[in-house]
């Protein structure tokens, strides 16, 4: 095991995949940085430092610095993927899916189906998402609730450096388009990372803490929030079965249903606003398939139905907190 930062896990995994497969190509805004400036290439190296050094190692033909043109970035990735390459494109902020949505939704997500299964579109679109940076309404959002509903796309939300490595390898080596959602607030987080060339399959949740009292489901940064609450409640003898979904499409329904069968109580933590999000989706799943197991109403801890605010106090109030998770868990336990 080695200690590695989340952002370094992203970059080093891309580097290794580029070295092992020459069809892997990186593109995006400032993935090189400094092109056309006095400072020269790699003056930036990616604003998240997730591509530093790749240009120097692999050259301009495989590390393509693009203009600010998100539609063209995603579309170019689609054309590369249809032509046998494995593009890893970066949307600097997940919020920018708005300007590239047709290419994500109508193009790369549908090529295989529309073409009768006669093609593959192995494009990975990485994007930094989530709040906690005081970046306000257009640079802080979650987008998994939008992308998960799009057939043809896979959606990945790693919460640890270990999962970044295993899941990103699976994404790049796989043959379907993958939306790889990296939480901004996690880039600087370090964690233990196993040695070796391991992969993590999509659709397999990770059990973060084991417990038989309440099931808590979370993704991305919310895993850490829920884990803090679970650790605190463990001191009171409350056992939380905390599941990190890792991927929302495909989603590990079985892990959720198996856990609820044991606990009879479910809290879903979702950083997205409350309508038509992952929490409502899982609540519906459990209502349909585990109704008789439930011993309390399902609780959802989500952001409110508002844009992400700027001011420190407002964003703190907006983001789901460990206190809210704890309150929700206790509420399900107090029911009847």
């Amino acid at each position, binding site marked *: 095991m080695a200690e590695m930062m989340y952002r370094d896990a992203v970059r080093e995994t891309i580097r290794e995949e580029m070295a092992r497969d020459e069809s892997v*190509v990186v593109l995006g805004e400032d993935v090189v940085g400094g092109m056309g400036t006095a400072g020269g290439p790699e003056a930036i190296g990616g604003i998240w430092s997730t591509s530093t050094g790749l240009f120097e190692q692999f050259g301009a*033909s*495989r590390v*393509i610095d*693009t*203009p600010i*043109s998100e*539609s*063209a*970035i*995603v*579309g*170019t*990735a*689609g*054309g*590369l*993927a*249809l*032509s*046998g*390459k494995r*593009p890893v494109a970066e949307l600097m902020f997940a919020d920018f899916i708005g300007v590239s949505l*047709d*290419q994500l939704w*109508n*193009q790369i997500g549908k*090529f*295989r*189906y*529309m*073409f*009768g*299964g*006669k*093609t*593959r579109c192995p494009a990975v679109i990485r994007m930094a998402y989530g709040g906690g940076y005081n970046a306000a309404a257009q640079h802080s959002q979650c987008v998994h609730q939008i992308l998960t509903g799009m*057939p*043809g796309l*896979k959606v990945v939300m790693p919460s640890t450096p270990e999962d970044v490595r295993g899941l990103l390898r699976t994404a790049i080596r*796989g*043959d*379907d388009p993958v939306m790889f959602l990296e939480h901004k607030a996690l880039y600087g987080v370090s964690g233990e990372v196993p040695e070796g060339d391991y992969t993590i399959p999509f*659709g397999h949740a990770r059990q973060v803490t084991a417990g038989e009292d309440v099931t808590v489901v979370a993704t991305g940064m919310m895993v850490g929030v829920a884990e803090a609450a679970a650790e605190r409640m463990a001191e009171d003898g409350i056992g939380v079965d905390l599941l990190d979904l890792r991927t929302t499409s*495909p989603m590990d329904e079985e892990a959720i249903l198996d856990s609820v069968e044991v606990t009879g109580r479910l809290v879903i933590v979702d950083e997205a606003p409350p309508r038509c999000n992952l929490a409502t989706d899982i609540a519906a799943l459990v209502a349909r398939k585990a109704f008789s197991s439930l011993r309390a109403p399902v609780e959802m801890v989500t952001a409110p139905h508002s844009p992400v605010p700027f001011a420190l106090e407002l964003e703190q109030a907006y983001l789901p907190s460990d206190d809210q998770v704890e309150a929700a868990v206790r509420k399900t336990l107090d029911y009847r």
Partner: protein
Amino acid sequence: MQLSREQLLQAYRRMATIRAFEERLHDVIATGEVAGFTHLYCGQEAVAVGVCEHLDTEDKIVSTHRGHGHCLAKGCDVQGMMKEIWGSTEGLCKGKGGSMHIADVDKGMLGANGIVGAGAPIAVGAALSNKLDGEGRVAIAFSGDGACNQGTTFEAMNMAVVTNAPCIFVFENNHYSEHTGDDYAVGTANDIASRAEAFGMRVWRADGCDFFAVYETMRELLEYVRAGNGPAAVEFDTERFYGHFEGDPQNYRGDGELDRIRKERDCLQIFRQRVSEAGLLETDALDELDKAAHADVEAAVEAARAAPRPTAEDVLTDVYVTY
């Protein structure tokens, strides 16, 4: 430029096949036998064929929702296409795509597209892929005077210039974006090529109803792009013989306009006239090709009518490679 007799025959045969294919569809769609939205390419055959006769399989094209002509010119199977339009499991896309999404990646045909202007960025990606492979291959984005107004097209043109992609933007100006004239909708005084020029590309302009003008222009243009000079663009002035979609009443057309363009601007007739005047092909030989094209299309219609239909189980196949 001198095309061989075989090249001339093949070019005319392909144009005649597109014409026969589209005319036949026009008839059957009117009867309600074929479902969905269909946009016919009649009138523009010289562009698709004049461009694609220069290409081989490794050169990619990305098409529009008026894409049947591009597909046929790039070598897609006539029966496979007709079966796709009928929605059969034996169609080129197993009945999942239909008229607006016909594709045959193995032929270098990366798809018709239901979204106006969506194809150009995809073509840039295909071009960059070809550039990586380093063998002088290109990718072509077909766009109309409608798609030339989409931001995606602008983004793609700039991206191609910045990345020096061997991408060719072929603008087919048929003077109508859906039901709106280019006098109104193309703000650069009907001049699309000047837009590409403004992005830093070398551009060409030619009469899209004259196969020989298209072919010669593309020969020169392709030589330039294949040599590694980066992207280029061309605008072809062409005509759309039918409406935007089948069923379009076309009440926006001028008096006698359709008769006039069919009489004066029919690319097949212009081809016949040219080769006859130059003594290159005999009328009989051309008539034979017309007959053969019609026979091929008729056989395709019969095959499509008899082809197997999908079942409800097929809805969920091919959404993903693995899930």
